[in-house]
Every structure is written in structure tokens, then in C-alpha cells.
């Protein structure tokens, strides 16, 4: 069996499970974000009066952080009241950060667990050897009621990444490249495991990016086998490693499919406006003028991302007529970035800092795009209208490419800027 199958078997009280089988699993941690007042509505509509395991439930206010409208503020108010009434103590209020990053930093998530959130990018947490997947409001309400949820055991696709990346090439470039090759429906209802020498050699900040964007291929969950890098990260978050169970995949396990990707000669990758899987090398789009850069989100707002961006923008200035918006994925990241001087460097270069949260990624506030705007974003989605006007253009790229483009005012290969 695959490690994920063993994990799901244990969570559902079975000894064996196979792909396609439906299991009802115990959920170790479930999280609701501030877009999902519907969770509470569905909970009451189903006749709920009491949350089964309030200690296993978290609420995070990240999509509207802080709220831009009366309605959004009122939704958060109702959620605070619900937490109070139901005895839910884990309420991460405005300004704490994006749910996936917060849960990773909280020390609550680790190998062997079942973690469910009302957000498609929950796959991010698979980088810790977790079964982590996103659901809608009503599914989450069922977890509030019962502590459990049904899942179809997914077949597992192996994406083997091999080789050392060149300077200024990041995990974002790899996952964009993979998306461009496999396309956005490659992994519907399947799990993706990332293996290979590249994965072993990169830190958690970069591993999260691979798992985060797996959902853009339709993946139900993503997985990276826990190793020393994982344990070091968990230790840094104050986790008791002994509390987690690490499952391993049997040697005779057959992957549904295996893809090999040699990352050695990879150039910076860019997804062209409108589609996450229409990907090319930077050389094909260099020089296109831009009006906004967005460095942030659960995909591209981690400490390593701010570090690279500050290295690139050090001593330079954001080009005229370009807004460079930076949103750290969590308060902890913001504080660390201040301590290390990245924030000062970026501010001196003309960047604009916004409260930790999702920011303009979903087009709600803090940098929405006008018709004709051209944005280079480190986020995960460039669907039409995603960040505002359907007539705006969003190029997805790495934080290195985004920072270099901000300095030049046009799409720029970060390797050429230095």
C-alpha cells in the first residue's frame, strides 16, 4: 500500500484500503475560513446543536483580512460568536495569516493526520506527510456534526523531480513547468506524490509550493514523504514529533502513473494570462510591460520568497507606474522578515506592504486589477477575472521573476537582472 492508503486505512479503522474504495475517516483537524459562513448555516440547517470535537476545529480569518466591507465584517462577527458558543478555542483572527501557512506553523499539523479545510489549497499541507484536502461548506459542516467525513481513496501519481535547480530558479518554476506539461485536469480525483533528489534537497518553504499548486492539476491531495527536513521544520514549530505517525509506502506499490522531470536546465517559468497550464519559459514573454506585481499568498508569500525578492530588489527601485504589493503569508513570517531586514529592503525599493492574509489573490481587496492592468503574481491562479477585471492580464511566476519584473517594469528574467 501507499503511505496515504495506510493513513486513510488507519483513520477509518481498517487494515487495508484500495483506490476507488469509499471510507469514512476520523478528521484530526478541520479548519473554516472567513469565506464560509455557509458552514455555520449548513450546520444549523442539518439540525446541529453541538460541535462534536471543538478542540479539533479551527477558524481562520484570512480572505478578508481586515474586512473591506460591512458584509465581510459581519460574517466574521457571526463566526466569532459561533466559536464562542460552541467552545471552539482556535480562532485565528484578522492579521494572523493564511490558513494553510498558519496551520503549518501552529505545530498542530504533522505526518499521518487527516486535515480538512474549506479551501482548495489545503493540499499544501501534504508536504508534511499529511492527508490534507479541501472541501466545501456543507462537507465541513458534517465534520462539525460528526467529526468524520467520507473519502474516495485516490490512485497516486508519482512526479519524480531530479537534479539541482540553477540560481534564481524556484519550486514555483518547477510546478508551473509540470502544470504546463501535464495540464490542469491531469490529476482529478487522484493524489500526487513528489519524489526524487530535487525534493529531498529543498526546504519546507519550497516543498509547500509544490503541494500547494497540485490542486491546479485537480489533485485531491499531494504528498511528500517526511524526512529530516520535515522533522526539523516540525521541531521549529514546537511540535512533539512523537505525537505523529509516519507511514511509509511499500516497495512493491504500483503508482498509477510516474513522470520524470529533470530540473537542471529549467528556466524561469511563466503561466500566461487566463490559464494556469498555458506555461512557457520567461524568454518567450520577456519585455512585456506590467503595471502591478503581487508577492504573497499561500503559494508565494513565505520567508524564502521575501528573502529572494529582497535580494533582487536590494539597492534598486520598483519601476515607475508599477505597484509592487507584498503580503507575507503570516504574521510570523512578517516578524521574521522585519528581523532579517527584508521588509526594510523591500520598502526602500518602493514595495507596498499589506496585512498578512490572502490579499488580492481572489479579487476581493488590497490590489484588485483594472481593465488593461498587467500583473505578475506569485499566487496560484490567473483565471479570467480572478484578481478583479476580466479584462486584466495575470502572469503567474516565481517571487524571483516577480521581483525582477517589478524593478524593470516589464517581464524580466531574474538571472539577467543581477
Amino acid at each position, binding site marked *: 500500500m501507499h503511505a496515504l492508503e495506510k493513513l486513510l486505512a488507519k483513520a477509518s479503522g481498517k487494515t487495508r484500503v484500495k483506490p476507488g474504495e*469509499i471510507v469514512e475517516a476520523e478528521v484530526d483537524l478541520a479548519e473554516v475560513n472567513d*469565506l*464560509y*459562513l*455557509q458552514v455555520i*448555516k*449548513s450546520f444549523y*440547517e*442539518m*439540525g*446541529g446543536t453541538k460541535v462534536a470535537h471543538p478542540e479539533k476545529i479551527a477558524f481562520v480569518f484570512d*480572505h*478578508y483580512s481586515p474586512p473591506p*466591507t460591512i*458584509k*465581510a465584517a459581519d*460574517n466574521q462577527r457571526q463566526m466569532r460568536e459561533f466559536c464562542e458558543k460552541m467552545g471552539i478555542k482556535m480562532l485565528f483572527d484578522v492579521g494572523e495569516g493564511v490558513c494553510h501557512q498558519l496551520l503549518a506553523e501552529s505545530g498542530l499539523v504533522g505526518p499521518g493526520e487527516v486535515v480538512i479545510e*474549506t*479551501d*482548495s489549497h489545503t493540499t499544501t499541507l501534504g508536504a508534511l506527510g499529511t492527508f490534507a484536502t*479541501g*472541501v*466545501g*461548506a*456543507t*462537507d465541513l459542516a*458534517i465534520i462539525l*456534526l460528526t467529526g468524520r467525513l467520507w473519502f474516495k481513496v485516490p490512485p497516486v501519481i508519482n512526479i519524480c523531480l531530479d537534479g539541482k535547480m540553477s540560481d534564481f530558479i524556484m519550486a514555483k518554476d518547477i510546478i508551473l513547468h509540470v502544470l504546463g506539461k501535464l495540464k*490542469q*485536469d491531469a490529476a*482529478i*480525483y487522484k493524489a500526487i506524490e513528489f519524489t526524487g533528489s530535487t525534493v529531498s534537497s529543498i526546504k519546507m518553504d519550497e516543498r509547500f509550493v509544490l503541494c500547494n499548486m497540485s490542486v*491546479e492539476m*485537480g489533485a*485531491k491531495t499531494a504528498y511528500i514523504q517526511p524526512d529530516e527536513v520535515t522533522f526539523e521544520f516540525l521541531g521549529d514549530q514546537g511540535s512533539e514529533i512523537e505525537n505523529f505517525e509516519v507511514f511509509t509506502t511499500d516497495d512493491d506499490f504500483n503508482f498509477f502513473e510516474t513522470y520524470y522531470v529533470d530540473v537542471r536546465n529549467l528556466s524561469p517559468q511563466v503561466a500566461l494570462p487566463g*490559464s494556469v497550464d498555458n506555461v512557457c519559459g520567461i524568454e518567450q514573454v520577456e519585455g512585456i510591460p506590467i503595471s502591478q506585481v503581487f508577492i504573497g499568498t499561500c503559494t508565494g508569500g513565505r520567508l524564502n520568497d521575501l528573502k529572494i525578492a529582497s535580494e533582487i530588489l536590494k539597492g534598486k527601485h520598483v519601476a515607475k507606474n508599477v505597484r509592487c504589493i507584498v503580503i507575507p503569508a503570516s504574521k510570523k513570517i512578517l516578524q521574521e522578515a522585519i528581523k532579517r531586514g527584508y521588509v526594510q529592503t523591500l520598502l526602500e525599493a518602493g514595495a507596498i506592504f499589506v496585512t498578512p492574509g490572502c490579499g488580492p489573490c*481572489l*479579487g*476581493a481587496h488590497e490590489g*484588485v486589477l483594472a481593465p488593461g492592468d498587467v500583473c505578475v503574481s506569485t499566487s496560484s*491562479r490567473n*483565471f*479570467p*477575472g*480572478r484578481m*478583479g477585471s*476580466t479584462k486584466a492580464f495575470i502572469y503567474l511566476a516565481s517571487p524571483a521573476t516577480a521581483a525582477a519584473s517589478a524593478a524593470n517594469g516589464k517581464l524580466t528574467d531574474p538571472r539577467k537582472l543581477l
Partner: protein
Amino acid sequence: MNQIEGKVFIFGDNIDTDQIYPGRYLELTEPQDIAAHVMEGADATFPSKVSPGAIIVAGKNFGCGSSREHAVITLLAAGVRAVVARSFARIFYRNAINRGLCVVEIPELDLSKVKDGHEAVIDIENGVMTFSNGCEFVFVPFSEHILEILKAGGVISLYRSKMKER
């Protein structure tokens, strides 16, 4: 709900949840408010032309992107009875079943053979969809588990009766 009949509206591949329901309206919570923006990101005229009983017919990977349940609520509240596609993104599919929206996967669906404005009949029990121009496509009928939820009008009413039994 053995049979669904209605007017067909055609969409392409990879219709994501931002096209079904743009993110800027996510703060809305009442179905009738949510319905006003149905499919706005894919076709800004859709909210004014959709009529109760509509069937959306699309290519592959319908509902990809975010987990927002608004994407299903907007379709239902606007009167869409069913979505038929060559394939569905997983979270959208679950959300649809949970709320009682009929989602039919037909991998062999050929969009070049059907047109906007055609009428169609979906025979849920036997797994056949027939368009008014005579085109016919077969699909694997729902499992008992999913059919039970759909017949109850969604998982909410199912759980409501379960909770009462307790």
C-alpha cells in the same frame, strides 16, 4: 428525479469557479443575492438569459479552482437543474451532490454536435442523455450512495433526518 428535461446552455473546457461565481462576490450569503452573478465570469449575459430548468453542458474539468460552495448555490438558485460535463473537478462535484445539484459526467460528450438552445432529456436511472437534434450520449448511472443524497435533495436534508433520529 428520474428524468431531467430542460434548455441547454453550452460552455467550454476548464470552466473554473471564478467564472461560475467571481471571487469579489464571496461575501454574499443569501442564495437570491448569490444567484444574481451566476456564470458571470464566463458569460456576463448569462444571469439575464438563464431560465428555471436550465441544463449546463460543458467540456472537461468543470468547476476547477476554489472550493467555494457559492459556485453550486448560484447555479441552483438561478434555476439550473443539472450540469453535464466531460469531467468535473473534485470539490465542485462533491459540493454539487451535497446540495442536490445533479452533476452528470459523460467523458464521450461531443460539444461540436450540440448547440446552445437545444432541449435535452437526462434519463438518470438508465444513464442516457438525449438532445433535441437526436444526439444521444450514455453515462454510468449514479451509485446508490449518491442517488440517495440526490433524491433527498442534498445531504442537508439527509442529515437533518438523521439528527432527528438521534
